[in-house]
């Protein structure tokens, strides 16, 4: 459903950028030789997520390792270096009527490919369009031994060896410094519409469950401040049909609202940053269709993700998530209480990639 369809040509598109991989690999190898930690940084837009980490050792920036290494629109795959800015990548894809499926947040407008993969944060379309991890097809990394290694590839189906590429997603660079990633892309939608309706959390959950059971081109839901919004995206005909089926009023025909949710620019997220605001912001991962009903909450992903600002202590928050068969993680620092058995294997996996623990120590609290 690409908008400027004719623009999608079969030619290889690359944007040369600059290859800094020798330097990055050598820097990790040197740190390994001295057993001194390195802190890997992209644009720093998501540094607050690992703020509590003991930022020991040298800081290593991927920002000079940039460029699109390969992009063939007819393969639905793009390969980009870690320091490539997400907005530049989006422009290159947009010229061919394509986009990354997972709408990564662009905190403060910044963000790099390496940061998006390492943080593994997916945008509002996640239940319908997939996550960062779903879209990643291959990576090149430098492991803690200073070796440059490639896993996965540029094809959609590939089961040769363990799926190391997807293991890197959300690992915050603690298993390897990402040099480049190959990701699936998809046609950008021809039409977008946002429907809005005043309703309670309970009613919103009922609507979300209905949506999960109906084959409609929905690509986002958000319930906040007593209003449920539903994003439709696809062909113009499909979007019109979905509007008629759902029978909810049209609010807008663009992505502006869902962009504020995606980038945490919605006022809900700002309240948090005011100095006198009370409570901690928690991110709850819940089953789709969950009816999570608490004050000061933003619920998206058809119920599968709730942002909850609360004074309740960690025990109470984890219990609330468990009551819905879900997980809670403080947004920012802190651990998510991984079960002991799983924690044991996470630490072993960390050791398998980074035996001396030099990569981003502290950034993945659960694996320390």
């Amino acid at each position: 459903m690409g908008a400027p369809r004719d623009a999608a040509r079969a030619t290889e598109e690359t944007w040369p950028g600059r290859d800094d991989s020798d330097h990055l690999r050598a820097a990790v190898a040197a740190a390994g030789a001295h057993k001194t930690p390195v802190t890997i940084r992209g644009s720093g837009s998501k540094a607050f997520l690992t703020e509590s980490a003991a930022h020991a050792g040298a800081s290593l920036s991927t920002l000079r390792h940039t460029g699109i290494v390969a992009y063939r629109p007819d393969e639905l795959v793009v390969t980009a270096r870690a320091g490539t800015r997400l907005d530049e990548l989006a422009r290159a894809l947009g010229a061919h009527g394509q986009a990354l499926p997972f709408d990564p947040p662009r905190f403060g407008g910044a963000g790099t490919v390496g940061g998006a993969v390492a943080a593994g944060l997916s945008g509002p379309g996640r239940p319908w369009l997939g996550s960062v991890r779903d879209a990643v097809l291959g990576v090149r990394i430098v492991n803690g031994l200073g070796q440059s290694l490639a896993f996965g590839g540029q094809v959609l189906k590939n089961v040769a060896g363990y799926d190391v590429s997807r293991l890197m997603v959300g690992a915050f660079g603690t298993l390897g410094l990402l040099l480049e990633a190959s990701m699936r892309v998809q046609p950008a939608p021809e039409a977008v519409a946002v429907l809005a309706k005043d309703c309670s959390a309970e009613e919103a959950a009922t609507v979300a469950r209905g949506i999960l059971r109906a084959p409609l081109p929905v690509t986002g839901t958000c319930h906040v401040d007593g209003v449920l919004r539903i994003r439709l995206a696809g062909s113009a005909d499909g979007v019109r049909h979905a509007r008629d089926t759902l029978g909810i009023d049209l609010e807008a025909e663009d992505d502006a609202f869902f962009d504020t949710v995606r980038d945490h620019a919605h006022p809900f997220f700002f309240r948090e940053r005011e100095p006198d605001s009370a409570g901690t912001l928690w991110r709850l991962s819940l089953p789709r269709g969950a009816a999570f009903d608490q004050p000061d909450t933003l619920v998206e992903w058809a119920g599968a993700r709730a942002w909850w600002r609360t004074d309740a202590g960690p025990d109470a928050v984890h219990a609330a998530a468990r009551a819905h068969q879900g997980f809670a993680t403080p947004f920012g620092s802190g651990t998510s209480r991984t079960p002991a058995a799983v924690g044991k294997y996470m630490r072993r996996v960390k050791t398998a990639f980074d035996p001396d623990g030099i990569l981003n120590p502290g950034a993945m609290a659960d694996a320390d």
Partner: protein
Amino acid sequence: MRDPRVIELLKRSLPAASVITETRALGPFETDGLTAIRQKPWVVVLPETVEQVRAVLEICREHDTPVVTRGAGTGLSGGARPLADGVLLTLTKMNRVLEVDTDTCTARVEPGVTNLSITDSVAHHGLYYAPDPSSQLACSIGGNVAENSGGVHCLKYGLTVHNVLGITVQTIEGDQLVLGGKTLDAPGYDLLAAMIGSEGMLGVVTEVVVKLLPEPSVKRALLAAFDDIRQAGDAVAAIIRGGVIPAGLEMMDALAIKAAEDFAHAGYPRDAAAILLCELDGIEAEVEADIGRVRAILDDAGATETRLAATDAERETFWRGRKAAFPAAGRLAPDYYCMDGTIPRRELGAVLAEITALSERYGLSVANVFHAGDGNLHPLILYDSAQPGELEKAEALGGDILTLCVSVGGTVTGEHGVGVEKLDEMCVQFDSGELDQFHRLKAAFDPGGLMNPGKAIPTLARCSEIGGMHVHGGALPHPELERF
């Protein structure tokens, strides 16, 4: 090393009928779908509960006995091939659907449940489980997880990794890992992703939570015929470039068409060099628009004929031929060897032409029927194992095809796994640092190397021994190893 106490302890922990040691009864377990390789296991166990699985693993750990996990045994790369001195842990008795949750659109199932029976048990809710390998009537969800299996619909709906939300794994050290659940994400490293496609090397999957999708309201299928296989390959790339993501996009070549037609009478044009089957699904308005678009692209690409199935029955007839292609190929020759490489779609035409040339050089026929939309080739090499040397010839031809796939930027396995079959080709695709990293990841879960030893990842020594080593940019891939 067979430690006789193992059998005794297994018999004590499991019901009598669940421990098989008599040679005759072991027969059905000596091979999986890769029938060229046969090996009887020492003992087969058929646990009925998670507790029994844990007991088997504990016995194996304490007595240093290797264990191979087996689902339905339909794997095509020898992943479930037994070991002469090992335990074959077969999960077919654990085949219950434990829970269907229509609020969260998930199902929780035991590992031995067949792929198709998941959909069968939720269909009356208008839901289904998307990945649909052609073996779906028989293969188990545990096997699907272990192989990251795909099917006809993965271009649009993804592979197993995109449709499994959670698993419970038993490790050889006796830990139970609950990874993911009914949620879309879980905190910490994505061990779930690492486990999917790990071919039984890291642990035993004892429970699976799958995502269910609503059945699309409309499904339509187009059949297009070409008198040149390259044009058919180029048409595939053109459809994707045109911004359409079909639910399925499959290709068959002349040999496969004739075989399928003789077998299933699907009404395929017998004189075509290739046909494409394109399924479009979704809501009426979108599907109608896509049909128009795809038809125009097919005509532009030089299709000699395009047919739209007028009814659901006709659509099913289109697919009947495709689904029967494997058994149909089985009638062309005494044996066939199914390959599984993936290539960038733009290389389809050229690679198919090269396969034809290889087939002539080796003097063995090759039928092609495959998932064209994802560039996933399944060349079926026809041979006769009764003829001395033919199996070896078929294997050599298969190896050449996979090397060709890697050389155009693809992979040696798209969905069937490495097993024992593609160990040598792994040496072509990965260098020693990468293989080493795989071995270290394996050791994180199974330090003693008791889980499915010898599969999936070749040892560095093996890679240095095999002939025909891939030369990468003028340098041998494993310079640190001695050459023999």
